[in-house]
């Protein structure tokens, strides 16, 4: 059966929360609330995460990897070049001096951490992204959007739920 996208716009978070809760509870053929529902909001709202439930964020792992890789790369690059002591005579001083090397290691630790965190953010947030099948500029202004994907047969049930919770606007488009 062909899938259909629906986007409902709400004026506040309470209504959006009520819709999400109802969509989670209700059993509709060809609709899985966990997979087929996306909430869009104009601000970062902790309550959205609250009512959507815990979802893992993995950016920190990128951060850890990037920072460690940056620090290690710096340390071994510097030490490697210092170990070329035939070219740089050390006059009895340590060939690989740890305290001054720590400074650049520290800088590269941060550099790697920041760069790879941003890369991790792009990967985890799915950016750059193509436009959703339905999008309203109102979401970046002052309204909360709930985008659902469901079988064609479920669309009237979903619409009635949105209408019940005072959706300001419902957009509909045939999906693939």
């Amino acid at each position, binding site marked *: 059966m062909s899938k259909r996208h629906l986007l409902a716009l709400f004026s506040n978070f309470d209504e959006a929360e009520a819709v999400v809760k109802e969509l989670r509870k209700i059993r509709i053929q060809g609709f899985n609330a966990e997979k087929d529902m996306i909430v869009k909001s104009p601000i970062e709202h902790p309550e959205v995460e609250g009512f959507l439930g815990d979802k893992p964020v993995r*950016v920190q792992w990128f951060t850890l990897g990037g920072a460690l890789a940056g620090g290690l790369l710096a340390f071994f690059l510097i030490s490697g070049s210092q170990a*070329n002591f035939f070219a740089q005579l050390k006059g009895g001083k340590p060939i690989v001096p740890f305290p001054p090397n720590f400074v650049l290691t520290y800088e590269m630790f*941060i*550099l790697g951490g*920041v760069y790879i965190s941003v890369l991790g*953010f792009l990967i985890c947030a799915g*950016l750059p*992204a193509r436009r959703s099948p339905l999008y309203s500029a109102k979401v970046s202004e*002052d309204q909360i959007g709930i985008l659902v994907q469901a079988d064609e047969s479920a669309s009237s049930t979903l619409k009635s739920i949105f209408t019940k919770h005072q959706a300001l606007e419902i957009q509909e488009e045939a999906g693939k």
Partner: protein
Amino acid sequence: MKDIREDIAWAKINKDVLKSLENPRKLYWVILLIAIAMVGVAVGCEIYQYNTGMGVSYKNNTHVWGLYIATFIFWIGMSHSGTLLSAILHLMHADWRKPIYRFAEAMTTFSLMTAGLFVAVHLGRVWQIYYALPYPNGRMVWPNFQSPLLWDAMAIFTYLSSSILFLYVGMIPDLAICRDNMNPGWRKKLYTALSLGWEGTDRQWRNFRVTYLTIACFLIPLAVSVHSIVASDFAMSQQPGWHITSFPPYFVAGALYSGCAAIITLFIILRYVFKFEEYMTLPILKKIVRLTFAIAMVWTYLNLIEYASVWYGHEQAAKDVLIQKATGPYAPFWWMMNFLGSIVPLTLFFKRFQTHIPLLFAVSLLLNMGMWLERWMIVAPTFSHGYYPWTWDHDQWPSLIQWGIVFGSFGWFTLLFMVFCKVFPSVSMYEVKEMVYHRSQATKKLEATAKLAAAGLNAEKGGAH
């Protein structure tokens, strides 16, 4: 008085900020033209210096650093307040920073870019700038990784690129707002490309929050390390008056101080030019002023510590430099630096001056003049009166070429900053919405609690009767 009105409609926030991208006051164009003229002066001076040689700057074997390095430190310092406002206050949940942190971050980026130019200008032989980078040179020998000058290059590169990423990542939701509201044209294309298809989904916000927080956590130690390393350029040398343990914190305090003063200046300019009176409010200005006053006092303390370290350290050469600063040819500038840095900020202590815009504008400029003099007074007197009497040169005065390039750097910074504010939203729309939303929710809760308490009291009274 509240930091911001809680009943501002979110659509109005978008409209007001987007208007700033199109219709600034005429003063904007005046500032831009002046900035371009100043840059023209600097470019002319640099071309002349490049063609004629470094001799035209009057730098010599004694005065090898001059105004260029003093101004380089000044611009590096200026960048720190952006990190203070956007990263430190973000971690401390000080939400009053939200309407003003974007331009402070931009200030960080552009002041670092301006500082970077001085390395090239100072070198003279700009085509050999790659020697300053960790790169194996022609003799297969890597640069000296134990030199603070190399640390500087790495630290500034890290700080600049991380600040650009921090600024960009934090701006993505606002770029999407611009994309959604602009008429077709080059701006729409630019915002569409830069917003990366942001739609404000729960997945995007969740990852955005963690990333922003993570970069903020990295930026704080980075900012401290950058200016500590700049301080190490001096403190790790054996020159009299520089070999002082308190130099790194002294430099960091000076950096935050000049940056906060610059934020006051730019706050006042942007508030007027882009008609941001509703977002850049007087209560927020008051908070920045108080912060600046506190940092000014920290700087004053560290400045006195520096004098005390030299005086009681009993190293005669360092003591001589200090005496020479106070009584020699640099005395007028040294005393002015102390007056502007430690006495002028005392005006900020008085409540009635904390929101007096014309006075604050003048004071913020004077504070930055004091901070620029501070950097000059660190660099020049030590060179003029070093360990060896045969190297003393007390009468050197920087040439017009040096002054021209320094003067033009202020134009360069202003030009970059003003162009940024016209192309990108200088007030964070989504964060102002968050601020308004959370504050209105808190007020509603308070009112509900008060009503409940009043109802409880009435019930108790009824019961007693």
